[in-house]
């Protein structure tokens, strides 16, 4: 006999863990299955930006829902995930003045969705934040964005879900999923099976292996963004900072945690190996990241990095996730492939998927993420 529940969730990242918590809130019994340990993949290795600005306008309602959860995370989770609403700044460089127009445009549309952004000239920015280099032309400041600790977040959601009765199996890799009659039966690599009428796939970069079993393959590409961290220095940089540029190599960002370390990220992404659960940092990417960090904030050149890391993230061709019901199989739902920006919206994704599953509908616009957009016409 296989273990039964109302919902099976495959994938214990931030999406699966928060969905488990909110599904319990709707009174559904939940079994969460995770290959490794909760929150060790993208959700535990990411940069930790809790940033709304820069997301597509159609995603802001989801991001707003998430921000409300981040703000109450301490009470909701009974744990401190180091969420700091200390602001976020997106800047552009002198050689791309046209981006100032894009920023203004974006700010006007974001305001309609309730996200206030303030545009600042390079000099105004340098007055307030003297670490910015001379190449910074302008910036867009969001006072209500911030950052959190990815190592702590997903496990805290999972622990909270477990306290509410969610059943969590770690070290449980699902290799087969089928719908038999009214129920889904999923089988772990060691032969254990689990049964439920509803299946939610939150398997991150591994999502395609499961969606394919239901005739819905997707063109997902695993990649490993590069991260570095400095030794601790006195806390002084409040907002998280990022560069807006069309060139991948220039796309760097940093934030300082309360303990004092400055986390650096971005520039060229490296390859990752989902089968081995490893993403290695290419040394040349570290060098390129540091070079572009020096341009953004030259004074950081005085510091040392003490560690680099990467993680496995699934990227979709249009940089938008797969999120919503399956087009082939009733009772099957997806939320994966967050394309490098799933951390902030994670808790909102969990709450929205729980709502869709429990109530059959949501006011949050998720149509842009439906899996059918990748269906090959037959």
């Amino acid at each position: 006999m296989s273990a039964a529940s109302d919902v099976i969730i495959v994938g214990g990242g931030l999406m699966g863990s928060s969905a488990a918590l909110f599904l319990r809130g709707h009174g559904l019994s939940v079994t969460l299955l995770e290959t490794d340990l909760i929150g060790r993949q993208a959700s535990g290795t990411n940069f930790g930006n809790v940033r709304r600005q820069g997301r597509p306008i159609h995603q802001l309602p989801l991001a707003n829902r998430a921000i409300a959860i981040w703000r109450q995370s301490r009470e909701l989770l009974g744990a401190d995930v180091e969420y700091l609403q200390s602001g976020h700044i997106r800047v552009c460089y002198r050689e791309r003045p046209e981006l100032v127009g894009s920023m203004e445009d974006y700010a006007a549309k974001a305001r309609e969705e309730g996200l206030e952004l303030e545009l600042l000239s390079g000099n105004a920015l340098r007055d307030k934040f003297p670490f910015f280099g001379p190449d910074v032309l302008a910036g867009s400041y969001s006072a209500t964005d911030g950052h959190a600790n990815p190592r702590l977040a997903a496990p805290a959601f999972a622990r909270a879900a477990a306290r509410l009765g969610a059943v969590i199996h770690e070290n449980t890799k699902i290799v087969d999923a089928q719908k038999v009659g009214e129920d889904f039966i999923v089988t772990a690599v060691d032969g254990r099976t689990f049964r439920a009428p509803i299946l939610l796939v939150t398997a991150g970069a591994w999502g395609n292996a499961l969606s394919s079993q239901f005739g819905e393959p997707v063109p997902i590409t695993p990649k490993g963004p590069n991260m570095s961290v400095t030794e601790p220095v006195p806390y002084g940089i409040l907002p998280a900072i990022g560069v807006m540029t069309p060139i991948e190599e220039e796309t760097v960002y940093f934030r300082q945690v309360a303990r004092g370390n400055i986390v650096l990220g971005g520039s060229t992404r490296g390859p990752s190996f989902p089968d081995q659960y490893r993403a290695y940092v290419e040394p040349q990417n570290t060098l390129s990241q540091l070079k572009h960090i020096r341009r953004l904030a030259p004074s950081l050149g005085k510091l040392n990095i003490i560690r680099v890391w990467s993680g496995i993230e699934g990227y979709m061709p249009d940089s938008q996730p797969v999120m919503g019901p399956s087009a082939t199989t009733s009772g099957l739902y997806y939320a994966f492939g967050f394309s490098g920006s799933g951390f902030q919206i994670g808790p909102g994704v969990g709450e929205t998927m729980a709502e869709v599953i429990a109530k059959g509908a949501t006011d949050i616009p998720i149509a842009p993420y439906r899996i059918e957009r990748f269906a090959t016409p037959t």
Partner: protein
Amino acid sequence: MVEPRIIPRVVIVGAGPAGTRAAEACVQAGVRPIVLDEGRRDGGQIYRRQPDNFTRPYAKLYGSEAGRAQALHETFDGLKGAVDYRPETLVWNIAGGHIWTASQTYADTLPFDALLLCTGATDRLMPVKGWQFAGSYSLGGAQVALKSQAVSIGHKVVFMGSGPLLYLVASQYVEAGANVVAVLDTAHYSARIKALPDLLAVPSVLWNGVALTMKLKRAGVAVHNGIKPLEIKGNADSGVSGVRFRTGAGAEQEIICDAVAMGHHLRPETQLADLARCAFAFDPGTRQWLPKRDGDGRSSVAGVYLAGDGAKILGARSAEASGRLAALAALGDLGLPVDKGEMASLRGDVGTYAKFARGLAKAFPWPSEQASQLPDDAILCRCEGVTAGDLRGVMRETGAKEANRAKAFSRVGMGRCQGRYCGLAAAELIAAEAGVPVEQVGRLRGQAPVKPLTIAIGEEQ
């Protein structure tokens, strides 16, 4: 000798006993290796050379090992035209058949056909309550102060821990005229007796050890065996003021001092082997994870060789033999003619030293129970200021019982030393708390850069 068609690119990391002998073997085979070392001078840790403007004699600096130190230095000096020697160069990462180096802000990348990792060792440390106070040093740190700076770490110095280095450094301090108030050894004397059969594998080294103890006693230094460290007393402003310990007989005792040098023998510097993706295995004798290698020093990764204390702690003499052996293995694998007979005899030497090393591990056991008994308010991870109680609390709250998991949640081992100092003790504490054998706790994954790397890297090219 047949001239090889293509000149192989051999890179040696580390210019200590193993690296020097490896370089010598390359040069003798007609190969010009690149030798990199983060230090300013060759010699490595044990035969660390004094700065150019210092002129202390060998006997004064290296005591019983003066002859070996001098021979090694002379060998290295003699190789200088024939090797591409790059001091003050940190190898901070290895990937795709290349090593990545940093020399201040200068970045370089070197391809290799054979990479010999002769990265040496650092102290194996056991945290003691109060070890974060200024005036607490590792034995290695205390030795560096003496050898390269000719200064003592304090006016009244206590040596605490166990292992041959405890006695060696203490006696070097006595020799240099420093005031050594006590040597506190956690190992019981009886352990040494039991280890004798293995230690007799290399009688001369055994005899050196006995001589050191006699020298300390003659100098009036109190030597206590079988002690249990309780606390390094002091405060954040004025540093160390004393040590409190339980004697072998069970009495509590306090000694006033202003500096403590600590260590429990050594641990290999295996991060580069890890970054090179060498496979590791748990070694029950030393309770450490060590890179796997065959009898000649071949790692699990083709083209990567391991020698000296950086692979396993077998001591300086063994390092010279295993450095040469690994180089011969590498040269042979590259198609150069090597003397098979010499390799066999080197293997024999290394085996003898391995027997001796087993004896040392028995004579000076790692007091793993001390980690599990560490009081809650004692700092475990100095870099991140995490106490034993913090880690226990995190384990209770999150259920973490694997080294990297516990690190992710508690920050233990997450600081600038990447767990070099606290990692082994933290693993013991986690194992005891979780009630699992220490090998099940796993090992902290090595992450680049192996030492802090300036963000200004690459600025000056």
